[in-house]
């Protein structure tokens, strides 16, 4: 019994110690990071979102290229490898931030492509553009077309080739004839006849 109690308290104590030890540097880092990252990011980000997709494809900027797919071996690797072990995004930011401040004011822009996912309507694949630690764009590389989704009214409007959307208006003009739903003149006549017969 005693042993069990000791074992449990020991386990609890060591777990707490682990959490405290591990947690405290992490949280302090976040606290340090954010103020450090913030002043750097706003300046480029103001002009960035429109530039971001181009910057990622732009081979001139060696720094923005550290995309996951491109896998430029020189500079981007370290940022990723440091990001991995610590496991949090904020720690990943830490090494990159000082670099951008010292070398170039551009934040790193990356394109990350998600896995292709099949559903009953088709194939979906999404790519995001990440500038620094912000997602600045999401692009659908593949979306289902045709099939069941056609019959949803929103889609019908999007895919419609004709002219539409205006509220029906009255237009009077000199006409030869009028096309319309069949009028039930017979029932009108029958009803009228019935009314007359009742009246007299």
């Amino acid at each position: 019994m005693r042993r069990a109690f000791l074992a449990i308290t020991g386990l609890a104590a060591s777990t707490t110690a682990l959490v405290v030890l591990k947690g405290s540097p992490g949280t302090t880092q976040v606290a340090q990071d954010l103020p450090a990252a913030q002043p750097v990011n706003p300046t480029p980000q103001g002009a960035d979102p429109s530039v971001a997709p181009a910057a990622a494809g732009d081979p001139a900027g060696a720094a923005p290229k550290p995309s996951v797919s491109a896998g430029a071996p020189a500079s981007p690797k370290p940022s990723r490898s440091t990001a991995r072990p610590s496991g949090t995004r904020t720690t990943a930011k830490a090494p990159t931030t000082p670099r951008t401040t010292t070398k170039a004011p551009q934040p790193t822009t990356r394109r990350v492509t998600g896995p292709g996912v099949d559903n009953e309507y088709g194939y979906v694949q999404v790519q995001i553009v990440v500038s620094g630690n912000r997602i600045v764009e999401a692009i659908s590389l593949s979306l289902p077309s045709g099939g069941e989704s056609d019959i949803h009214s929103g889609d019908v409007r999007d895919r419609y080739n004709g002219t539409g959307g205006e509220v029906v208006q009255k237009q009077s003009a000199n006409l030869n004839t009028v096309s319309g739903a069949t009028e039930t003149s017979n029932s009108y006549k029958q009803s009228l006849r019935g009314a007359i017969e009742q009246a007299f």
Partner: protein
Amino acid sequence: MPAAMTRPGLCRVEQIMGTAITLDLADDLAPATLHELADQVFTWMREVDARFSTYRADSEVCRFDRGEVLLSEASADLRFVLEASADLWGATDGFFDAYATGRLDPCGFVKGWAAQVASDRLLAAGAPNHCVNAGGDVRVRGRSPSGEPWRIGIRHPWDPMATCLVLAGTDLAVATSGVYERGRHVLDPRRGAPAGGLRSVTVVGTDLGVADAYATAALAMGVAGIGWLDRLADHTHAVITDDAYQLHSSALPLTD
């Protein structure tokens, strides 16, 4: 009516098929010829009514439906209409269904087809300028008595005295199906319930029977009918939804 005296041709209206049939002959032919042509047209329309009316128990379509007439004994017209209805059932994904009401009722095709045949016969008989209006389904050919292309209004679905669009042409079949005259009489054959979403569908083509059936089918489809009409080859359309929005093909022969 001095206008009626000066204009060439002849205009006649008769009540057949439970609705008004209007014939406007614009050719400057001898009055006797014009009357003879008009007589032929209305004789044909009454013949169609007698054969295809679902309101007459003794019509061929009712006798056929009750099994009193075999397909092999049926008239050429009935066999043609049955065959066309089957084709249209396929072409409209089953939404044009001559059996939607539970018994044979091909009226969604017959009225337009009858007017189309009348127009074809007038053309063959040497009267290429005319307008046949069978209860709102219109076939025009050539030019109107004024010498201009025919001007066809599409009825405003909330105001019987107004039109919402005007078409003009010299060779048009214009069929309109709507819920504003006879209520929600068009059934969605897949649900067996009245169709909803669209208040009026107009289809423009060159065969009035087909245009009539397409308009009925699109109305039965509801909002999905807009996309279906949009993909139809060789036909243009105008649709008015239940919430009063108007959509039409960019190629619709509109005029002001």
